[in-house]
């Protein structure tokens, strides 16, 4: 249960981070107040997740925090990509090579 919560907190932090990027802000317009909320969540959610991990397992908490963070980042990025695809924004990117 704790680990699910940690995963959710990390996902929220990554989601807010992506929402704060100019490219996403133009695709998903938000109100002015939402920016501050996003910034606060982005800063606090990982700290809270770390606290929970250390509380759950003081010796190995840091490893859970890092591992779940990576997993949450990956799943959030895939979710974001799918949402952008649904809104027809996926093919706007340039070819890198």
């Amino acid at each position: 249960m704790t680990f699910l919560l940690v995963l959710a907190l990390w996902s929220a932090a990554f989601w807010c981070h992506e929402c704060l990027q100019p490219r996403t802000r133009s695709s998903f317009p938000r109100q002015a107040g939402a920016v501050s909320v996003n910034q606060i969540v982005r800063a606090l959610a990982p700290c809270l997740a770390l606290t929970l991990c250390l509380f759950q397992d003081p010796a190995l908490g840091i490893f859970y925090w890092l591992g779940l963070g990576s997993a949450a980042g990956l799943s959030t990025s895939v979710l974001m990509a799918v949402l952008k695809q649904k809104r027809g924004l996926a093919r706007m990117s340039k070819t890198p090579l």
Partner: protein
Amino acid sequence: MRETLRVHMGWLHSWVGFLAGLLLACIFASGTLAVFDTEITQWMQPEVPLTQGTSLTPAALQAAAQAVQAEEEKGLSAFLTLPSQRDPVLRVLHYDGYEFVGTALDSTTGAVFPARETAGGQFFYNFHFSLRGGNQPGVQIVTFLGLCLLVAIGSGLVIHIKALWPDLILFRPFGARPRAWVDAHLIMGVLFLPFIAFMGYTGTAIHARALLPAESFFPSHTATPHKKEKTAPKGRVLQAGPLPPPLAPLIAQARDVLRSPDGNLILFTPDEVRIFKSDAFGPFLTRDHVAFSRKDGHSLRSVTQSPPAVATMQLVRGLHYARYAPLPLRWLYFLSGLAATTLAASGLVVFLMKRRRSSGEQFFFRIAEALTMTTVVGFPTAILGIFWVNRCLPAVFSGRAMMEINLFFLVWGLCAAHALLVSLTRHAASGWRQQLGVLAGAGCGLPLLDLVSRSHAWAQGASVFMTADALAFLTGLIALCALLKLREPAA
């Protein structure tokens, strides 16, 4: 100046990453599987029931001691692993030069389970750190590749540092094909950077002496030659010791001293019985042990303290080997290992995509594409091949473990030959599709084969069998998706 540095680092990252990445992807993949080496061995030895507890009887220990002595009479240095939560079986193992292999005993009666001979998960563990090439050159090559990995990580960071923060989770799988591959490479590298850098560093540090030995590579002319004591090669003994004393009281005494309730390791020398602390209790991979006399069982000494430098290396080893990790953490290691494998594989693909037009698909490009195909598709096919061979060969078959390994390399070799053939004849695209088709068939068919072979009862240790089969099926599905994607025209 800064841009010049990025350009130089880009060149370094591309070439070091590609040349080292061809083998690093295999090392990452085998390391990922080695996280569950015990479980893979359990899957490959379905005759061993996994429903026993961790309790031991004196009769079982006596049978194990006799088995150890019998192995010593054959010149093999055998040892015992006691049942643990993870592997509830009493095992009598010896080192065959590559893997720890041996028999599994019932921890209550001491009867030997008629389990099939297999290299099991140990094969992937050995491949991960030595490519099954022994200390020289296997471990040396892997350690050197570890250094290359650190160089690739450093140069990759310099290239990507400006976009690191804003593009932290940017992934465009539905964009143009090159864009999607670059994003996949970046996202794996960035999100799993702590794990990959840490594992790369600790893996290199563990075997640093393979590259930088404490003594000179060349013998000194001034040093006086000293007389060498006659020692047995690793995994062998020169002479068998006497039958050890009853082990149950020694184990109880050692567990009190070591505070290690199960899963201990017991080594035997002609004079001593050494009972080691289990690696499952804490991230320090200690060699804490209690030594007893092999003649009468009296306690000789206990080693439970390590100097700080030794303790540091114990921590480095412990964190890399992850034997301490409980199941959820082991899954995170596994996931991170998969991410590292994807990072290396996507890097190889990006390298090829970037040069396909500019190279005019000349000879060296075609060789590079063949090697990439061998790594990205051939290696997982060979891995699945070893699982197939395990179920297809008769359970009672002499030299079975070696046969599995030989067939693994045969499948990988065939994939390499096929990749070279199709690449050199300018049919690489159909080569990718053919190999992906084989991989998809091997992956999706494995659960069916496991079911049809009726090698085990599904009620016993079902989670091990179902998880392994599900992961194989998932690999097949991913290969199938890639195959279908390759049939579409490139965006």
